[in-house]
C-alpha cells in the first residue's frame, strides 16, 4: 500500500495520467487503479449494500456526516415516508431511501432475512413485550399487504467514471484503491461533473460563505483517509445489520451472488443485484447493491451509461461542424463583390 500523503500522491497521479485510462472505452473492472497509472496498487475495494437487511436506522448517514465533517442540508419534513434527507448532495454522501409498498401478502412470508446473530450471549429480559424477533415464528397471520423497502445509496465509484472523465482540472482522480475522489484543493467548482454523473451523485456544496468546501464538487470518498490507515469506511463500520459491507471487490461480488442465491432459494424471487455487472454502462460499480424491486423504485437509473463512451463520435461531429463553418465563411466571401 502506498504510504504517500493524500494530497501529494493524488496530485501527482492526477497530473500524470489525468484519468485518460478510461478514455473512450471500458477499463478492466478489477484494475482501474492500475489503468490509472498506479503501480503495486492494493486490490480494488468497494461497498456491497444489501438492502434486504437494511432497517432504515440512518446510522450510515450520521456516521458519514460525523467522520467527514459535512454540514447539514437543512432540516425539512419532505413527506416521503421516513426519508427527510431527500437525495445525495454535496453535503450528504449516504442517503437512506424509504419506500412503503402495497403488495400481495405473503410473498416473502416467514423468510429469515439473515440479520446477524448476537454471538453466544443469552437474551437478557429488558421488560420488552417479547424476546423473539418479528418473523421468527414463520407465522404469517396478521400480515398486511405492505412492505418496507429501505436502501442506503452512495457514490458508485464507477469503473468508467463520467465525473472523472469530464473533470477539466484533474481534481477528480482515481485512487490506488480503485475509488474516485475529489481533491478539495484543486477543484474550482466548474460543476461539469454534476450533470455528467449518470447516477446523480456528485454535486456542488451549497451553503453560506465560509462553509467548508462550499462551491466545490463533493461526494463520497469511500473514506480515503480511513482506507489509508487500513480502516473500514465510517458508514460500513456504523451499519448495525451489515447491510453495508466493505471489502475487496472480488470478495464482495462472490458474497453478493451467494446472497442472491440464498434469497431466491428462500422464495424471495425479486432479489437482484444492481451495478455489479462489468458489462453495464459504467463498467461495473465499486459500490453495488442487492435490491428487492426495480432500480427506479429506489430512485436509481435502470440502465446508466457514462456518456464519455460516445465522445469520439461527438468529437467527430464537432470537427465536421467546425469544418463546415469554415467552408461556409470562405464561400460567403468567395461570392461576388458587394
Amino acid at each position: 500500500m502506498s504510504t504517500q500523503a493524500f494530497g501529494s500522491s493524488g496530485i501527482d497521479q492526477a497530473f500524470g495520467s489525468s484519468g485518460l485510462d478510461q478514455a473512450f472505452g471500458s477499463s478492466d473492472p478489477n484494475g482501474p487503479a492500475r489503468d490509472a497509472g498506479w503501480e503495486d496498487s492494493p486490490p480494488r475495494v468497494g461497498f456491497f449494500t444489501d438492502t434486504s437487511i437494511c432497517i432504515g436506522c440512518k446510522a450510515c448517514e450520521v456516521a458519514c456526516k460525523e467522520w467527514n465533517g459535512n454540514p447539514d442540508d437543512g432540516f425539512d419534513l419532505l413527506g416521503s415516508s421516513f426519508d427527510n434527507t431527500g437525495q445525495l448532495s454535496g453535503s450528504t454522501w449516504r442517503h437512506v431511501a424509504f419506500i412503503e409498498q402495497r403488495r400481495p401478502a405473503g410473498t416473502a412470508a416467514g423468510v429469515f432475512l439473515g440479520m446477524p446473530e448476537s454471538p453466544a450471549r443469552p437474551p437478557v429480559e429488558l421488560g420488552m413485550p417479547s424476546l423473539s424477533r418479528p418473523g421468527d415464528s414463520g407465522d404469517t397471520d396478521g400480515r398486511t399487504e405492505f412492505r418496507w423497502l429501505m436502501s442506503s445509496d452512495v457514490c458508485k465509484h464507477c469503473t468508467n467514471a463520467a465525473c472523472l472523465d469530464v473533470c477539466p482540472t484533474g481534481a477528480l482522480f482515481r485512487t490506488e484503491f480503485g475509488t474516485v475522489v475529489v481533491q478539495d484543493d484543486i477543484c474550482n467548482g466548474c460543476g461539469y461533473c454534476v450533470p455528467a454523473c449518470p447516477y446523480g451523485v456528485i454535486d456542488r456544496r451549497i451553503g453560506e460563505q465560509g462553509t467548508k468546501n462550499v462551491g466545490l464538487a463533493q461526494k463520497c470518498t469511500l473514506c480515503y483517509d480511513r482506507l489509508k490507515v487500513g480502516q473500514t469506511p465510517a458508514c460500513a463500520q456504523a451499519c448495525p445489520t451489515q447491510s453495508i459491507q466493505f471489502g475487496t471487490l472480488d470478495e464482495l461480488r462472490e458474497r453478493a451472488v451467494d446472497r442472491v442465491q440464498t434469497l431466491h432459494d428462500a422464495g424471495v424471487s425479486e432479489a437482484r443485484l444492481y451495478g455489479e455487472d462489468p458489462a453495464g454502462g459504467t463498467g461495473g460499480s465499486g459500490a453495488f447493491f442487492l435490491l428487492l424491486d426495480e432500480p427506479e423504485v429506489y430512485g436509481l437509473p435502470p440502465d446508466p451509461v457514462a456518456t464519455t463512451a460516445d465522445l469520439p463520435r461527438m468529437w467527430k461531429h464537432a470537427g465536421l461542424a467546425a469544418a463546415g463553418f469554415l467552408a461556409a465563411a470562405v464561400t460567403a466571401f468567395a461570392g461576388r463583390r458587394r
Partner: protein
Amino acid sequence: MVPDATFTSYYGRPVVKPSPWELDIPAYLFLGGLAAGSSLLGAGADLSDRPVLRRAGRLGALAAISLSLVALVRDLGRPSRFLNMMRVLKPTSPMSVGTWILTAYGPGAAVAGAAEAARLLPINLGLIGRLLDVAARPAGLAAAGVAPAVASYTGVLLSDTATPAWHDAHRELPFLFVSSAAAASGGFGMLTAPLDEAGPARRMAVGGALAELAIEQRMEHSMGLSAETLHTGTAGTLMKASKALTLGGALGAAFLGGRSRTAAAISGAALMAGSACTRFGVFEAGQHSAKDPKYTVVPQRERLNRRRAGGNQPTTEEAR
C-alpha cells in the same frame, strides 16, 4: 410506490442532477458563437478589403469573447481558482479541450480587436500603434483559424453529460451551434457594416439561419422522448421565439437586406436574438429534462426491456 402508470420513480425526484450552471452558460454559448463568427467575418473582410466590416468583426469578436470569459469565470464555484483549468489537457473532458481552444483563440482575437480600437483613438499610440497595425492581420487570421472550433465544441460540452435532452441531441448539437453562430455573427455584420460591404455577412446570415432551422427540425426527430422538453415551459417559449426570429431574419436578410440599410439592421438584430433564444432554449430544455425523472427512467427502461427481449443474456441486475 407507483405514482404513475407509465413509469416508476422515487417520489417524483430527479434521478440525475441538473447542471448547477446559471444563465451565464447559455449567455456564453451565444457570445462564444458570436465571437467566432465575427472573427471569421473580420478576417475575410481584411483579406477582401472591406474596412468597416473588418473593424466591426474584430471589435465584435473582442467584446464577445471578453464577456464570455467573464461569464465563464463568474459561473465557477470558486472563481479565484479559474486558472486550475490549465493544469491539464484532457481529451475526455470537453471543458478542458474548450479551455485550450479558447486559449488558442483569445490572444489573436485580442490583438486584432486592440488594433482596431487603437485606430479609433484620437491620440497616436506611436510604436505600440504601429506594432498593433503590423500584428493585426496575422493575429486576426490566427483567431479565425481557431474560431470554428470555438463555435462547435460547445455542442460536445453539453452533450457529454447524462442530461437527457443534451445527450439525446449529441448528433446534431455541434451543427446546430455553428449554424446558430453563423446566423448571429452574420446578423451582427449586417447590423454594423454598410450595404456595400455586408454581402458576405448577409450570405453567412442567411445560410446559417436556414441551416439552423433545418438542423433543429432534424434534432427534434432524432432525440426521442426528451424532445418534449423543447416544446414545454420556458424552453418551449424560447424555441418558438427562436424559430420566428430566425425565419423572419433570414427572409428579411435575403429579400431586403441587400437594398435597405434599415431592413438589414432589423434582420440582423432578429437573427442575433434568434440565436440567443436557441442557446437559452436548449439550455433550459436540458435543465428541465434532468429535473423530471421521466426523461431518464423511461428511455432507459425501454432500452433495458428491448435488450432483454432481444434474447441477450440478461445480467443479474436485470433478472427478475
